[in-house]
């Protein structure tokens, strides 16, 4: 069962409906037992980093997530803020500690571009064809368009985890991948067919 983690931030219903559309049942919950039992985890998110990390801490979900991702190797998908939360720090509204699962930080776009970065934009894969294929991007073409809404972006210390970049003023990571951990800065649940394909691919991992 795919669990969508409910921590009071966001786009849960749209994510759930999108999974339903591609044939996967999900449970929206903040219950630690259910999170423990999940075969895959999704951390959506819209809103402020500070509030999000506070809420994850208050519900003790933060520790459980680190455990599930690092030790148990459970498939995990972070969407938008849900991906940013995985990093060590965020500069949004001050300097705040994140889940610290990925070394790096979350930064604001330069003042030269309009914020938020809102709309459809294309992703460019960073890998060459010999590279091991990211399973959730199976059947997704390079330069596909996805839907973005965000003012902050991730800066990863380890460039190898960046699976695609997107240009907005300069190139930023639009998706990351390390083993069982997947992060997308765009909203697959609002990205039409390509987005749904990604959710479907992720759903397949939950069956393994």
């Amino acid at each position: 069962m795919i669990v969508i983690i409910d921590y009071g931030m966001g786009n849960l219903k749209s994510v759930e409906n999108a999974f339903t559309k591609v044939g996967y049942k999900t449970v929206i919950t903040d219950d630690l037992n259910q999170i423990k039992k999940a075969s895959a985890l999704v951390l959506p998110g819209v809103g402020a980093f500070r509030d999000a990390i506070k809420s994850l801490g208050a519900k003790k979900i933060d520790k459980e997530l680190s455990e599930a991702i690092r030790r148990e190797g459970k498939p995990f998908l972070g969407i938008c803020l849900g991906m940013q939360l995985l990093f060590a720090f965020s500069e949004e509204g001050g300097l705040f500690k994140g889940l610290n699962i990925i070394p790096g930080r979350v930064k604001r776009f330069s003042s030269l571009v309009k914020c938020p970065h809102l709309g459809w934009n294309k992703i460019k894969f960073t890998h060459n064809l010999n590279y091991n294929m990211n399973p959730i991007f199976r059947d997704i073409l390079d330069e596909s368009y996805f839907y973005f809404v965000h003012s902050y972006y991730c800066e990863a210390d380890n460039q190898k985890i960046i699976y695609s970049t997107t240009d907005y003023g300069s190139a930023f990571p639009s998706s990351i991948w390390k083993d069982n951990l997947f992060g997308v800065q765009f909203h697959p649940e609002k990205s039409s067919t390509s987005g749904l394909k990604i959710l479907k691919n992720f759903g397949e991992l939950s069956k393994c």
Partner: protein
Amino acid sequence: MLIIPAIDIKEGRCVRLTEGQFEDVEIFSDDPLMVAVKWANKGAMILHVVDLDGARYGKLTNISLLEQIIKKVNIPVQTGGGIRNYQEVKNLINLGASRVILGTILWKDKSLAKRLFRDFSEKVIAGIDAREGYVAIEGWQNITSVDALDFAKEMERLGARRIIYTDIKRDGTLEGPNITNIEKMVKNVNIPLICSGGITSLDDIKKLKRLEGLGLEGIIIGKALYKGNILLEEALKLVVSE
């Protein structure tokens, strides 16, 4: 989230209708160009310009005025009303329209709709106007028996990148938006949605802002801006994200 001022043009003037009735017209300015400049100067990030004569008669009518607006303001302009074929969409994009809103044409010719979405991608928007939950076409004069939500899903399947959902019964009424219907729509489509119809107060905007995370990208405001119920500056302040 985007606050999108609407400029509806009828016979060269900036007007507002009530519930889409062409008889129920209120004139707000004889100079739509000045109105466009005003909204842009107040900080609007995008404008929504509708050719009401075009929508009514199925033929672009106020095109030179539209061109002047596009040339004059340095913000994106989305436009619609009376666009009934491929070439017209192309012409409007070449003219500088950032996005072209289509309605009737999508309803009438699904294979053309598919081709338009494919060729122009997010340069076209599926405009879904609903009365009592059913799709209205041809300048809202005809109500079909097609459910608006089903139609939205169909548009998404055909490749639409964005939807504008208008509740005709609320449009121009200053009665507040039908939040239940907007929420239902935004939850059930997998592309961004812009809503319009009935937005009257800052409180309405606050309520709609809660749907942002579900995929509500913007709010079109018409009469409330012209009547002064909402000040654009205040509305913009409400939606600015950190």
